[in-house]
C-alpha cells in the first residue's frame, strides 16, 4: 500500500513538468501581451521594453520557462500584471473555489446517489421515469440559462438570496451557486448510480442476502449500494477537478472571485504566471483526487488490493 502510494506520487513529477511546459507554450503562443497594457494608445517603446524585461518576456521561450521553474521551486509563482504575487491570488481564489466545490460535491453525493438508488430500485415505475426526465432536462439546459434564471427569480423577484455572493463567500451564500454548479454532474451521478444499482440487483450476492432474510435496508445499503458505488466514485473523483476549474460560468454569474475568474483574467491579459500557476495547482488537485479515488476502491470492494 505504502509503496503503491509512493509510486503514484513519483509518477506525478513528469506529469507536473509536462503540464506546466505545455501550458507555458500555449500562453506564449498567444503573442506579446505588453501592447495591450497601453490600451488604444501606441506603446512607448522604451516603457514597453522595460515591462518586457520585468516579466522576462524579452528572453527566448525555453529560458523563460527555466526561469519560471526556478522561481516555482523557491515558492515564487511570479506576479500578475496588476502587480500582485500569483501566490496571493491563489490564496484568495482557491479557498473560495474549494468551498464552492464542496457544496456542489455534497449536492451531487446526497441528491445524485439518493435519486439514483431510488429510481434504480423502482425501475420502470413513475418515480424512475420522473427522475430520468428531470436529469434529461437538466443536462439539456445550459448552466448559463439555468443560473441566470434562478438568480433572477430567487434574487430579484423573491429576494430570498443576494444575486451576487459577497467577497467572503460563506457557505450559506454558496448553496444556490453550488446547486447550479452541481446540476449537470448531479444528473450524471443519478444516471450512473441507477444503472449500477439496476445491474447489481440481479447479482448473486444480493439474492443470497435476501434469501438469508436480512432486513431490506441492510441489503440495500451494505450490499447493493457499496458495490454499486465504484463507477460513481470514479466519476466524482474526476469531477472534483472539473468543479474547481470549470466553475467559470457559475462563478461569473454569481460574482464569485474564484479560480475560474482568476484564470479567465490571466488568459485575457495573457499573463503566463497566473495561468500556469493556477493550472499547475489544478493539475495537482486532479492527480491527488485520482489517487484518493483509486485508494477508495479498496475500501468499497475488499477484493481490490494494491501492492
Amino acid at each position, binding site marked *: 500500500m505504502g509503496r503503491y502510494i509512493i509510486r503514484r506520487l513519483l509518477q506525478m513529477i513528469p506529469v507536473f513538468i509536462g503540464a506546466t511546459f505545455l501550458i507555458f507554450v500555449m500562453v506564449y503562443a498567444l503573442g506579446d501581451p505588453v501592447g495591450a497594457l*497601453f490600451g488604444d494608445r501606441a506603446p512607448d517603446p522604451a516603457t514597453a521594453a522595460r515591462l518586457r524585461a520585468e516579466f522576462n518576456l524579452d528572453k527566448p521561450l525555453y529560458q523563460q520557462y527555466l526561469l519560471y521553474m526556478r522561481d516555482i521551486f523557491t515558492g515564487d509563482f511570479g506576479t500578475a500584471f*496588476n502587480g500582485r504575487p500569483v501566490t496571493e491570488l491563489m490564496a484568495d481564489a482557491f479557498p473560495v473555489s474549494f468551498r464552492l466545490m464542496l457544496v456542489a460535491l455534497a449536492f451531487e453525493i446526497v441528491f445524485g446517489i439518493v435519486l439514483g438508488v431510488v429510481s434504480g430500485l423502482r425501475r420502470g415505475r413513475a418515480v424512475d421515469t420522473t427522475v430520468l426526465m428531470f436529469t434529461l432536462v437538466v443536462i439539456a439546459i445550459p448552466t448559463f440559462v439555468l443560473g441566470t434564471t434562478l438568480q433572477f427569480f430567487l434574487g430579484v423577484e423573491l429576494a430570498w438570496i443576494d444575486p451576487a455572493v459577497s467577497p467572503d463567500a460563506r457557505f450559506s451564500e454558496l448553496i444556490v451557486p453550488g446547486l447550479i454548479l452541481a446540476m449537470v454532474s448531479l444528473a450524471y451521478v443519478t444516471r450512473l448510480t441507477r444503472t449500477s444499482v439496476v445491474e447489481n440487483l440481479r447479482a448473486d450476492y444480493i439474492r443470497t442476502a435476501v434469501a438469508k432474510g436480512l432486513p431490506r435496508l441492510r441489503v440495500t445499503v451494505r450490499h447493493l449500494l457499496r458495490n454499486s458505488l465504484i463507477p460513481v466514485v470514479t466519476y466524482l473523483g474526476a469531477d472534483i477537478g472539473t468543479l474547481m476549474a470549470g466553475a467559470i460560468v457559475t462563478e461569473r454569474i454569481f460574482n*464569485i472571485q474564484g479560480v475560474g475568474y482568476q484564470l479567465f483574467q490571466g488568459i485575457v491579459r495573457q499573463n503566463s504566471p497566473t495561468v500556469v500557476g493556477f493550472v499547475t495547482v489544478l493539475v495537482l488537485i486532479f492527480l491527488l483526487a485520482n489517487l484518493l479515488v483509486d485508494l477508495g476502491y479498496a475500501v468499497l470492494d475488499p477484493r481490490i488490493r494494491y501492492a
Partner: protein
Amino acid sequence: MRGGTRLATAVAGLVALALAATACGGDDGGGGGAGAGGELVRASWGEPQHPLEPANTNEVQGGKVLDMIFRGLKRYNPDTAEAENAMAESIETEDQQNFTITIEDGWTFQDGTPVTAQSYVDAWNYGAHIDNAQIGSYFFEFIDGYDDVHPAEEGRQPTADTMSGLEVVDDTTFTVRLREPFSLWPETLGYAAYAPLPQSFFDNHDAWLEKPVGNGPYLIDSYQPSRSMTLVPYEDFAGDDAAQNDGVELIVYTDNSTAYTDLQAGNLDVADDIPAAQLRNAEQDLDGRFINQPAGIIQTVSFPLYQEEWQGEEARRIRQGLSRAIDREQITRTIFNDTRTPATDFTSPVLQEAGGYQEGLCGDVCEFDADAAREMIEDAGGLPGGSVTLTSNVDTGSHREWMDAACNSINNVLGDTDACVVNPVPTFADFRNQVTNDRMTGMFRTGWQMDYPLIQNFLQPIYYSTGSSNDSGYDNPEFDALVDRANAAESEEEAVDLFQQAEELLVEDMPAIPLWYQNGIAGYSERVDNVKLNPFSVPVFTDITVD
C-alpha cells in the same frame, strides 16, 4: 406502490429542506450585506489593470479610485469639463513655455504630512523615469528634460534622475519649463497622472500600494484586492468638493450582468457599466434612474496610409466615399440603442463649444448618402483591389456587431456583397500588436478615450506626424504646422480656432472616418440621489447623497 409513496415523500422532504436552507442562507447574506453597507454608497467596480499608482493607471477602474483619493492642481468640472483650480492657487506664464505654479497652503496627505511643491516635483519625476516603467509616463513628455530620464529608444540608459524643467522654489511654489510652447498645458493638469505623492510612497512603496494614501476627499479604509474597497471621507480634506456621503464601497464584479441584477435587487447603488443586452429595458427597469450622456470617447476607423494603395488623390476620395457609405444613424440606434451618437467632427461633445467641439464640422462627408457615396467611389476608380477589409478585435464591446453592420452598409451602397469584409482578430493584445507594427491593409478600428478634455488631445496624439498614437501614419506638414501654432497661441480661443482649422484638414484628407461618440451609461438605486457622470464617465462620488 406504498414504498413508492414513502420514497416520494422522502424526496419531497429533502427538496423542501434544501429550499429552506437556501432561504436561510439568503437571509444571512442579505442581513450581512445591509449591515456592512450602512450609509455607504455601494458602487460597481472592476479590478484595476495595473498597480494603483497615479502615473501607471490608464483605465477607468483604477482611475475611479484615483479620482477619489487624489486632488491635483486642477480638477475638471463634472458638468462643463472645464479645468478649474483645485490645489493650484495660480499657474502663470508669459511665454506659454515657462510656468510658475503656486499651490494653496494647508493641504495635507491622509497620513498627516503636508502637500508641498516638492510632493509634486517628486511625483512627476517618478512618473517620468524609465526605471519605474509607468504606463502613463508620456504625460510628462512636454516637460523639459523628459528625454534624459526617459530615452525614446529602447535599451538606452537614462542620463539624469530628474527632469531639468522642474524646479522647486519654496514650499508652495515650483516652476516648470516645457520643451516647447504649449498654451493649453495648464488645462491638462487635472489628469490623475499629475497627482502629488507623499514621502511614504517613495520610502515604503509596497506598503503604499497595499493601501494608497492621497490628498483627496476620500481615504481608503480597507482594500481587499480583486474583491472590494471601502473609502471613507477624509476629515481634513482642504478642497471644496468634500464628500456628501458617509463613504463609498466599491465592489468588484466579474460580470456586468451580475452587477445589473444586484442593482435591480437593491444590493447595489451605482452601476456604471450596463450590459448591452439590457440597454433596451434599462430605462424602464430602473424607473428612469438611468444616465446616458456623452463621454470623452470617439470611435473611428482608420486607414493604413503607409500602404501604397491608400495614398494619393483617388484613395482620398475613396476614403471620403466610404465615410458617406456608413449609415451611422441606423447603427447607433439598432445596435447601440442610442448609447452612441453619430459623429460629426473629430472631437467629442464633452468639450462643449468653448472647448473646441463643433457640431457638423465634418459636413456632408460624415453624412450617409448612398448615391453620393457610390458615385464618389466609382469616380475614383473603385475600391483598391475591388474590396476593403474592416479589422478589429472582437473580444469586447459589441465590435463584431457594428463591424458587420458597417460593412453591410457599405456593401448595400456599392451593390456588392463582397465589397467590405470583416476581419475579426480574437484578442485585443493581438489586434494592437498588428496595428502598431503597421500590418493593416484595409480599414481598422481606432478608438480614442481622451486623457483630458482638450481639443488638443483629440488631434495631436492621433494625427500629428510623430503623434504617440498615430496608427494610420498620417503625415501632413500643414496639419503639423497648425497644431504647432495652436500650441504656441496666447489665448485659449486662438488655440481652439487653430486646432479647428487643423481639423478641417482631417475632413479633407480623411485619414480616419469618425463613426460615433460613445456615451457614458449608469444606473442607480432608489437609495441614492445626485448621481452624475463626469466627462470621463466616472460617477462623481463626492456629490452622491444617500436617503
